[in-house]
């Protein structure tokens, strides 16, 4: 049977490809120097010279958006990778160990789940410090419970399967069982979660930057650009449009990609 083409998958892939392409292009070409101020040209309307206009210092908005895309993707990918690695390890350990240790670990994860995202991120940034590293770590820690829970339930489910019992019977270590025998089966769901989580991470990073707790000036970030635009938004509404649209496309793209992958790989394999 021919599969129906998934709209989410296509749309998500296109949006993510657009943003990644913009990020890559920024390394070889940007319309202008994103840091260069031009006070004569403050709040220029979008036009031939500045495709998306200029900000309150006369800096080219398009160039700043392009440079900021590097940091958004860097923080998104790094934080989710760190969170996924740590979270998966914790979840797998809890499921394989069993006993008191399992309850202790899972109650701990429950506790972390009780923190609203922005609250946990703000608290962690207070300790870890503002800036890129602080954001990556804070968002990475925020991602741990999601991946722990996912891997925990998958490992528990797989533990009952015959192939795991077979591996146990010929003396595989627990680590080998998880890494060599279970991981291939868990990979589709992990990749799906990875993609959706990047969307969430980019959103969280931009929220931190908006509050002045994330990426620090002069490094541009979409959240900070919007935070600066807020002071002038009533007089110059157009400066708030472009960074928001790009941010929306990024988050929506990764979310749709995650949903699309989920429809394609996870739901089919569970049937």
């Amino acid at each position, binding site marked *: 049977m021919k599969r129906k083409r998934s709209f989410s998958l296509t749309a998500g892939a296109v949006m993510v490809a657009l943003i990644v392409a913009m990020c890559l292009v920024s390394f070889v070409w940007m319309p202008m120097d994103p840091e260069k101020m031009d006070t004569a040209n403050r709040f220029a309307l979008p036009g031939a010279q500045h495709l998306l206009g200029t900000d309150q210092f006369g800096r080219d908005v398009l160039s700043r958006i392009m440079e900021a895309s590097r940091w958004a993707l860097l923080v998104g990918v790094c934080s989710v990778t760190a969170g996924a690695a740590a979270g998966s390890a914790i979840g797998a350990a809890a499921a394989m160990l069993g006993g008191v240790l399992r309850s202790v670990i899972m*109650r*701990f994860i*429950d*506790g*972390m789940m*009780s*923190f*609203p*995202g*922005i*609250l946990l991120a*703000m*608290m*962690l*940034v*207070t*300790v870890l*410090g503002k800036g890129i590293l602080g954001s990556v770590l804070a968002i990475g820690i925020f991602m741990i419970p999601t991946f722990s829970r996912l891997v925990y339930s998958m490992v528990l489910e797989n533990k009952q399967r015959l192939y795991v019992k077979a591996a146990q019977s010929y003396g595989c270590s627990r680590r080998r069982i998880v890494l060599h025998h279970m991981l291939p089966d868990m990979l589709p769901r992990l990749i799906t979660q990875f993609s959706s989580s990047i*969307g969430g991470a980019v*959103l969280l990073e*931009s*929220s931190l930057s*908006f*509050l*002045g*707790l994330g990426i620090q000036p002069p490094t541009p970030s979409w*959240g900070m650009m*919007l*935070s600066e*635009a*807020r002071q002038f*938004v*009533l007089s110059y*509404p157009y400066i*708030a449009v472009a*960074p*928001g649209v790009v*941010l*929306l496309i990024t*988050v*929506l793209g990764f*979310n*749709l990609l995650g*949903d699309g992958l989920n429809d394609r790989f996870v739901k089919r394999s569970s049937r």
Partner: protein
Amino acid sequence: MLKLLVRRLLSALAVLFVVSFITFVVLLCIPGDAAQLVLGVDATPEKVAALREAMGLNEPWYIQYLDWIGGVLRGDWGTSYVYGENVWTLLCQRLPVTFSVALLSMLIAVVLSAVLGILAALKKDSPLDILARTVMQLGGALPSFWLAMLFMLFFASYLGWFPITGYTPMSEGFGACLRSIALPSFVLAIGELGILIRIVRSSMLTALDQDFMLSARVKGLPPRAAIVRYALRSAVIAPITISGMQLAKLLGGTVIVETIFALPGIGRLMLTAVEQRDITLLQGIVLFITSMVVLVSLVTDLIVMAVNPAIRTGEEAVSR
């Protein structure tokens, strides 16, 4: 039933302990000396040392934790050094603002997601379903601060329907208060829609697919009656649980709209605490909000236990 109840209570207590522990330990790691922060950089070392002793900072960390938790249980949440007031008093002052915004936005989100989610599930793949799924995706992806700015521009500045910023307390009239929190609540509600529509739609789809719907049809019940009497009742559990959790989480998630719309709520208090490194205040806020999340999720679980006959009679819910 009783066994289940006791187990659920114990697990809530354990999570509460974990939450308070995480909060305390994480904030203990803040670089810098708390006593120095309170007194400022000009303070003499003797004064700092004396205050350290008075604040109990020389004790081992577990004694400090027990002191703090003991105080919290007795109602003494410590004194904020920025405001010079009791943390509990500050929380009580700010809570009405945050709570009314959170409650209104959840009301909007629950009503809209129930209508959209149920109709979308009944008419799967129809234009309405596509609309619901679009709202769901946008709700999950729209940055709240951007949406807040757009709403402010259009509804407050251009149309003039709502005040641009500021909060009018309930004492100055219900209508004025409602108008001042309407826009922030809508912004938060759209974010919540992303989560809630997904849950409502998928639990409704699952319910419609169950065997009891087939037997209702076999015994000749009109579809509408079957949906209202069986499907809706079975589909309502997951959304109730999630809505409760989200309401509690919103108490800690309002910081962005409070900043943009200049509302004097808990979120702004927290931002001040983070910026000024007011550890006592931050500890208090974080503990308060996470405890609310744990308690609300306990209460919603208890409600679900009371509503769901399968759990009430002590059987495990059969889900296939």
